[in-house]
């Protein structure tokens, strides 16, 4: 196994474990909040924290989905076009995705810097910098995942040969 494959496997395992932890946390939080509400003592911080976990699940989960190339798309057209065009278009497509997430990471980092000193409304000891950090970190993880999965995606699209129609 090459060191790149080992890194990819470790990256995927850590990211997946963290996402499962977020999912379980979200479930436990909602159940606890229901129990408190039924007992007549609603948790004031429930809505804010639950939606922060959802945002984290969105971006860390998106990086995991990018690694597995799970995001919704339409590979059918690029699979069918002549081989001479497929590679340049594939590269352009991959580059555009990466450019978008570079811009998002940069903007996210700028926002995090601007938010220094801000705290969550309901949990005043939690810095907003921490909750908002998911945008730059998530965007960077997405880029890493996208880059690592390029060879697999190229093979899935048929590589140099393309795919016969009946396989599509």
């Amino acid at each position, binding site marked *: 196994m090459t060191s790149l494959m080992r890194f990819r496997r470790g990256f995927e395992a850590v990211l997946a474990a963290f996402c*499962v932890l977020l999912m379980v946390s979200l479930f436990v939080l909602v159940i606890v909040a229901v129990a408190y509400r039924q007992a007549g003592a609603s948790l004031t911080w429930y809505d804010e924290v639950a939606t922060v976990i959802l945002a984290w699940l969105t971006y860390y989960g*998106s990086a995991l*989905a990018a690694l597995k190339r799970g995001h919704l798309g339409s590979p059918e057209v*690029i699979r069918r076009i002549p081989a001479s065009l497929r590679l340049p278009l594939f590269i352009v497509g991959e580059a555009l*995705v990466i450019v978008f997430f570079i811009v998002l990471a940069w903007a996210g980092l*700028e926002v995090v810097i601007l938010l220094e000193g801000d705290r969550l409304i309901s949990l005043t000891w939690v810095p907003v910098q921490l909750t908002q950090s998911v945008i730059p970190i998530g965007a960077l993880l997405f880029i890493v995942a996208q880059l690592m999965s390029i060879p697999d995606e190229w093979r899935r699209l048929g590589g140099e040969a393309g795919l016969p129609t009946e396989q599509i």
Partner: protein
Amino acid sequence: MDALAMLLGMVALVLINVPIAASIGLVALVAMIALKGGGDLLNLAITMYEGARSFPLLAIPLFILAGSIMNAGGISRRLIEFCSALLGAIRGGLAMVDIGTSIFFAEISGSAVADVAAMGSILIPAMKKKGYPAEFAAATTSASGSLAIIIPPSIPMILYGTIAGASIVQLFVSGIVPGLLGGFGLMGVAYWYARRYNFPVEQVFNLCRLWVAFKGAAWAFLLPVIILGGIFGGVVTATEGAALAVLAALFVSGVIYRDIDLRFLYRTTVDGVIQTAVVMLLIATSALLGAYLTETRVPQAAAQWLTDLTNDRYVVLGLLNVLFFVLGFFLHSAAAIILVVPIVMPLVNLIGIDPVHFGIIVTLNLAIGQQTPPVASVLITACSIAKTDIWATSRWNVPYIGVLIAVLLLVTYVPAVPLFLVEYFYR
């Protein structure tokens, strides 16, 4: 940037295999720069963060997780055993079992793909073994899988309700009658196929066997009572109902049935995370697009243009049905809701169409779109399990799609069909 140029740009990006979420984000980013210059780029990060923080959307990952646990814990297997005892004596019994179990499973799962994965992995191989054509098995599983988004709970309805500002509970209730009509219609088509091709009868009806199967599945039947009863009764919100679904599924699978496999559960939870993230990233990037549309008032202009042509709500609904039907060939259901609903809602409100009525119309259109290739997530999942060609399977699927279209037309032009329960209980 011109709206048409944005649309064309988005299509071009999708065609070169850029994920739909990134395509929406890229086009919105360019539009944002064109409209306000590069100085406004920080809003990109803020809008995309806030776009993923909508409270009603919390129900989506939880319903997905509940579906994963139900698959891992053998609940779907017990539902199939019960339906087999109930419907197996009818000609083409396994197809009936497939559709009947999908109706039950739809009441505890909000995702059509989850339904097809649960039913298809057991019933498609069984049908093939009994001599049913593989394409028929795939088509039946695919069409019945779409009932999962019509019968509550329903992830597309949660999405629609969040975007359109409609009551998610009322949307859920509006799906009950059309979902059951669709289910019985699909059974009628399966029976017609069974008579025509002389498909086998599974077993003689036996009341004792039915009772044993019912006792085995009794806890599974309690799940929809707990989940939907809690939501419809106003005891819990849709989000809390989704968490309750996870808790109930864990209890039934882990404590009652004792057949939960933690390793499989972990894997399916990871799959659930990915499904959630795929939908949520679409929502987050569409928030960018929404910000641009709000700024430029494109939806309002489109609504005004159409109302200048006609004010007849049934003509407008017909046109919207045609729009969604055509888009269903090319767009995934989540993408169709996210892209189209914000644009057409001003028109829907202007004409005076009930947003709950329009919500069930949209959902039925999406159910049909899941069956029409080339972009047909549910059909493709069924075909990959059955190892069949999607176009050959589609030929068998045409009568099933016809049933869904008939239900759509009934729901569109007889609003009482989806709305009488809503009117009776909530208005």
